[in-house]
């Protein structure tokens, strides 16, 4: 794997290999960090964030550090067309400094493909591009579910919230579909375009009852405040009432349903505050898996199969 840009570009065996090693790293991470071999010793990993992020960035930086890489970070708000030229100059300059990996986050869909095309040597890891993909998130979600359920085939995932603008939803749908799983989608109609059913094996739920009936995991997506300003949803209280998850909504259900959230959570909007860290929540598990999966991703950039 030269770059990690989208789940779309990965084979099932590549995904499985990343998850397998991720599980091993997760064990080491939780039990004995000193047992982690410094497989990225001598490599320089740059985290290049054109868009604000806390957890993804820290997670990648910890992952790279634990593998012995030298980690540097660079952030600048470069997104407009006029700045395209200076952006290229910046990247060419960074490449000339012999950086090995660039972990990139930006609001521009497809920017990692552009960098992979225009830069010769740097390996690109997409940490989220616009509304396109967020592959490391989908991989960490998959690892979290795999550990919990033993097998991804046992997962019945429903994603609830802002599907239209969500790179997390796209990458998760692509990944689950690759393993033969359908994904249920639910959210306000302004944020759940019907064409989503044509880009993957997806079923749109008509109401929350359908979601509860189908799912054993509900992944809640963050509702961005700017969506409210542009009339996708009229208010957070309305969102909470119809699409937010509460103990009450799950009460009628006999089976166990777990909840996930890529974070940061809007408490009492997507998820009732008392559920965020409850025993039904995998939210902190996701964060831990995140570091492990990102270690595995970085490892796979330089090694096709993990060492035994």
């Amino acid at each position: 794997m030269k770059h990690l840009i989208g789940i779309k570009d990965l084979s099932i065996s590549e995904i499985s290999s990343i998850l397998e090693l991720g599980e091993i790293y997760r064990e080491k991470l939780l039990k004995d960090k000193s047992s982690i071999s410094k497989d990225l010793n001598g490599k320089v990993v740059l985290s290049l964030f054109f868009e604000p992020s806390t957890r993804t960035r820290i997670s990648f930086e910890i992952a790279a550090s634990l593998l012995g890489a030298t980690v540097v970070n660079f952030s600048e708000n470069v997104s407009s067309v006029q700045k395209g030229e200076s952006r290229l100059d910046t990247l060419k300059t960074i490449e000339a400094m012999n950086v090995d990996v660039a972990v990139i986050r930006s609001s521009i869909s497809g920017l990692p493909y552009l960098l992979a095309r225009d830069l010769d040597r740097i390996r690109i890891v997409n940490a989220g591009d616009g509304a396109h993909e967020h592959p490391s998130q989908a991989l960490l979600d998959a690892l979290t579910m795999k550990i919990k359920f033993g097998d991804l085939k046992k997962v019945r995932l429903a994603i609830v919230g802002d599907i239209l603008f969500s790179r997390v939803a796209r990458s998760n749908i692509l990944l689950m579909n690759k393993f033969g799983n359908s994904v249920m989608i639910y959210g306000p109609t302004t944020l759940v375009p019907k064409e989503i059913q044509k880009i993957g094996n997806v079923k749109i739920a008509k109401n929350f009852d359908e979601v509860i009936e189908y799912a054993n995991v509900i992944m809640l997506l963050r509702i961005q405040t700017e969506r409210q300003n542009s009339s996708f949803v009229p208010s957070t209280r309305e969102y909470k009432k119809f699409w937010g998850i509460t103990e009450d909504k799950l009460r009628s259900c006999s089976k166990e349903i777990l909840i996930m959230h890529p974070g940061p959570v809007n408490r009492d909007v997507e998820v009732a505050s008392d559920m965020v860290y409850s025993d039904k929540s995998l939210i902190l598990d996701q964060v831990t898996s995140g570091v492990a999966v990102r270690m595995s991703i970085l490892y796979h950039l330089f090694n096709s199969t993990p060492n035994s």
Partner: protein
Amino acid sequence: MANLLIKNGSVYCYKNKINGESLDILISDGKIAKVGKNLNYECEVIDASGMFVFPGLIDMHVHLREPGFENKETIETGTKAAAKGGITTIVAMANTNPPISLPEVYIDVVERIKKKSVVNVLQSATITKNMEGKEITEMGLFKELGCITFSDDGKPVYDARIMQKALVYARNFDVLILEHPEDVSLSSGGVINEGVKSLELGVQGIPNSSESTAVARDVLLAKESESRLHLQHISTKESVELIRWAKSMGINVTCEVTPHHLVLTEDDILGHLDTNKKMNPPLRTEEDRESLIEALKDGIVDVIATDHAPHTKFEKSLTLQEAPFGTIGLETALPIVFTKLVKEGILDFMELIKVFSFNPSKILGLSQKGHISEGADADIVVFDPGKKYVIDEEFFVSKGKNSCFLGFEVYGIVKYTVVGGKVVYTVS
């Protein structure tokens, strides 16, 4: 005195119903002097055996970019590209820098055109001053200088009241309003067609309704004001149906479609870096494309026009989300339409000549163009229908290389382009 004789070509002329008959055309003093069999004169002779010979194409929608954006295109390179494409008359858009909103600017640009252009250029002025959509331009003064078309293309006239005034005022001077129909409150921020592809790529979409609601507004304004209106680059099936209705109501509306909307769909966009297929209006769906072809055949769509929109290599070397809208089209329109529609049996060559030469001449009131008749302007194309080649960047004389048809294998190449009796282009 005779100065050019085109012999033995298969001649096509919609107006005179000449459908591939082998005829000779004698040109004298920039006009067609005689059309007939076995003409012989002591003058320069083009042997057009095996070639199609037809009236020069008239492209109602071209961005020459001069003045202001000479890094993208100039009057010289743009008109040379037209000549290479068999296009002998173009309507140049007015969204230059400065925009052509003052007669003084128009005079300057027309001077440049006289010096640099190799084909006929009808320079448009803007509908509103500086394309701000607030006040209409001095259409009477422009008309006195020879300007007959007005367009804010690049953007629509957003305010319906201003659009209505422009349509009514244009009647004073019998000038033509060319409108880019788009409701920017629906399209703003959009990158490609809103649908499966925009979702897949995670970019904001441009819905069909952003065009069709504007078309509805514009035809209703034309109806009420009893004015002529030409709608630019129609791309959706809903627009087609609205224009069909408008024509059935007797509203004086005409419209154009581009070769790329006739041939490509959003499915042809290969990914985030395929920026040459980013244009406004965007490539739509197969259903829309089929509707446009049907409308072209049954006369609801009047005209093929290129919307030739050159940009620099760097501007198009960005992501879909960042790159500017537009594809070049002058040099590929004829071979693409010929290959994808005529050779496929979808459109007769006669129909092609009708929508790409005769109809534009009628809409623009150019009675001496768009047909092969004695006394008409000698704007003529000699076209080799058998030549097969692949469109690559080296093919273009336009400064812009941003063609959505790069890599396409096509048939048919222009051998000679004659403008006003002079050969302005010969294939090398």
